[in-house]
């Protein structure tokens, strides 16, 4: 297990290198000139060329790439934003916590609401609870996010005046963004839980457990749920990764200065160092989350643990 984790951690470096090269290349071939973007309307070509030279954008691709890789991987410096003139890492870190709060809360809501909904739906298959869950789930996946968010604002903030319209601050600022952002996640979670619970409930070992005279509760929590969790973990992990990438829609509607907003505006203004740095940081976080997912898999499922551990299995199998 330890070896597995170390191996996977070591993998992060080539992955980061891959991401850096890929993104750099994409940014390179992407149309749109950062120099022109910085200077804004009314700059002459001569001024733009000067700016390009200043930013080192007039050098050949390979020189720029190697320069960047050297800076990131050897000097551990993500560079300085073209616009903010501040180190990229500072900009990312000052915004990371908004995204983290949002992502973690949404994740918690998704798990705490979505999972029980799905379990209820599965155990009361075709019953009232099932219908209700599936209605929520279908609504969650088919209602456009921004629309749901705006409707909430119109109702709770413009009409009732209960919650702030936008911005960041105390808990009340996060209520609507979190609901809006987790709605689809809750729906997906409920669906996934239901379908994987149904699959598990019909498996033989549940019959075995029933035949032992266990109570419904014991069967649900000791036998069915832990097995059903396995596919659910993937959904949670993927969702977490996506949310960290920034809930662009929700951050935009509620003017939350999170990573998603930051990267989007950096893409729009061709602030390459921010885009590159942001993707790299997110890449690391994403890789770590995926690793965590795999570790949790192993924790839940001894078969997978055995695969990570490698040798042991064959020996015992033949025993």
């Amino acid at each position, binding site marked *: 297990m330890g070896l597995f984790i170390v191996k996977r951690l070591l993998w992060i470096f080539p992955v980061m290198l891959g991401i850096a090269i890929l993104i750099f290349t994409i940014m390179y071939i992407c149309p749109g000139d950062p120099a022109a973007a910085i200077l804004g309307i009314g700059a002459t070509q001569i001024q733009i060329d000067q700016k390009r030279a200043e930013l080192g954008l007039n050098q050949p691709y390979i020189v720029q790439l190697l320069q960047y890789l050297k800076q990131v991987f050897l000097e551990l410096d993500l560079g300085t934003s073209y616009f903010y003139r501040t180190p990229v890492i500072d900009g990312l870190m000052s915004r990371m916590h908004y995204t983290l709060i949002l992502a973690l809360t949404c994740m918690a809501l998704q798990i705490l609401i979505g999972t029980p909904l799905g379990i209820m739906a599965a155990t009361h298959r075709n019953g009232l609870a099932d219908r209700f869950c599936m209605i929520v789930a279908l609504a969650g996946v088919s209602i456009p996010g921004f629309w749901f968010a705006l409707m909430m604002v119109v109702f709770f903030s413009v009409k009732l005046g209960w919650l702030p319209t936008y911005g960041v601050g105390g808990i009340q600022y996060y209520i609507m963004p979190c609901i809006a952002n987790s709605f689809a996640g809750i729906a997906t979670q409920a669906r996934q839980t239901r379908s994987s619970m149904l699959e598990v409930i019909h498996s033989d070992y549940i*019959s075995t457990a029933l035949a032992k005279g*266990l109570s419904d509760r014991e069967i649900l929590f000791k036998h069915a749920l832990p097995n059903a969790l396995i596919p659910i973990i993937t959904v949670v992990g993927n969702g977490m990764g996506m949310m960290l990438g920034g809930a662009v829609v929700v951050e935009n509607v509620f003017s939350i200065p999170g990573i998603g907003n930051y990267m989007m505006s950096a893409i729009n203004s061709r602030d390459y160092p921010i885009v590159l740095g942001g993707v790299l940081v997110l890449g690391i976080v994403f890789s770590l989350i995926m690793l965590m997912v795999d570790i949790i898999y192993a924790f839940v499922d001894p078969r997978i643990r055995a695969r990570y551990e490698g040798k042991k*299995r064959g020996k015992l199998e033949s025993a």
Partner: protein
Amino acid sequence: MPHNKSDAFLSVQGLAVEYSSSGEVIHAVNGVSFDLKKGGTLGLVGETGAGKTTIAKAIIGILPRPPANVSAGEIFMNGRDLLKVDNAQMRKVRGKEISMIFQDPMTALNPIMRVGEQIAEAIFRHEQVTKKQAEDKGKEMLEMVGISTERYREFPHQFSGGMKQRVVIAMALACNPSLILADEPTTALDVTIQAQVLDMIRSLKNKYGTSMLMITHDLGVVAEICDDVAVVYAGEIVESGSKEQIFTSPKHPYTVGLFKSLPDINSDMERLNPIDGLPPDPSNLPAGCSFGPRCPNFSPKCQDHIKLKDAGNGHFYRCW
């Protein structure tokens, strides 16, 4: 009715089970009756899909409801109708008084729970013991089925098929049940292991005096372990009697067919004689004898309802 429930340990009377899904009703079990003597072994024989497992699940009360529904019948054990026992009481019966061995040991064990715990769980549930005592008893059970106690903390994937089935058996016997429902306990195992497992089941059963319902499609297993036999076809018992009666003088064409389809090591046959055709669609049973369409002796009167006939000495069959 030829059955007398007073002298039987387990007596199933007119049991009928249906599955319904999207407006379709599947008649899985249609008025099955049989008795099992205390300490005896009854073999339920029939093809896959004949309703054998459904009967066993109905007895232990773990049919999935819905879609399954017991539409008629009574199941008496020690004179108590299990179908009338409420769920909480029934939970105390399951695993304690009746236990079940499932067909496929590969899937019958929870893959992510230690095997020992899976055995101890049943003990802890039914006996007045501490967790530690349950664990000790669990280890004892493992030893009894010939598995070293060191492997108590291992997971099912670390066990071979035969060992898994031993675990399942240990689990079934853990609380000294008075009735074991063994659902094709050896089907999924290879032949050498089959014999070992059967031996073990028989010796354990004899040791504890347990009654057993042995579900199988393998007449060899029946010959080895059963006292009485009931042949099931399309959710009905088409013939029942003692092992000797059925083996020496089968009356029903289906039973006859079953024996014919066995390889005979004494004769130099080129090929086996399988029964032609497939069992009927349980959602669309033929009128009268459900074996009719495949029967070599089919005649128009077979399309009427056929009553059970008495061939004497407790040997019954459902044919003209």
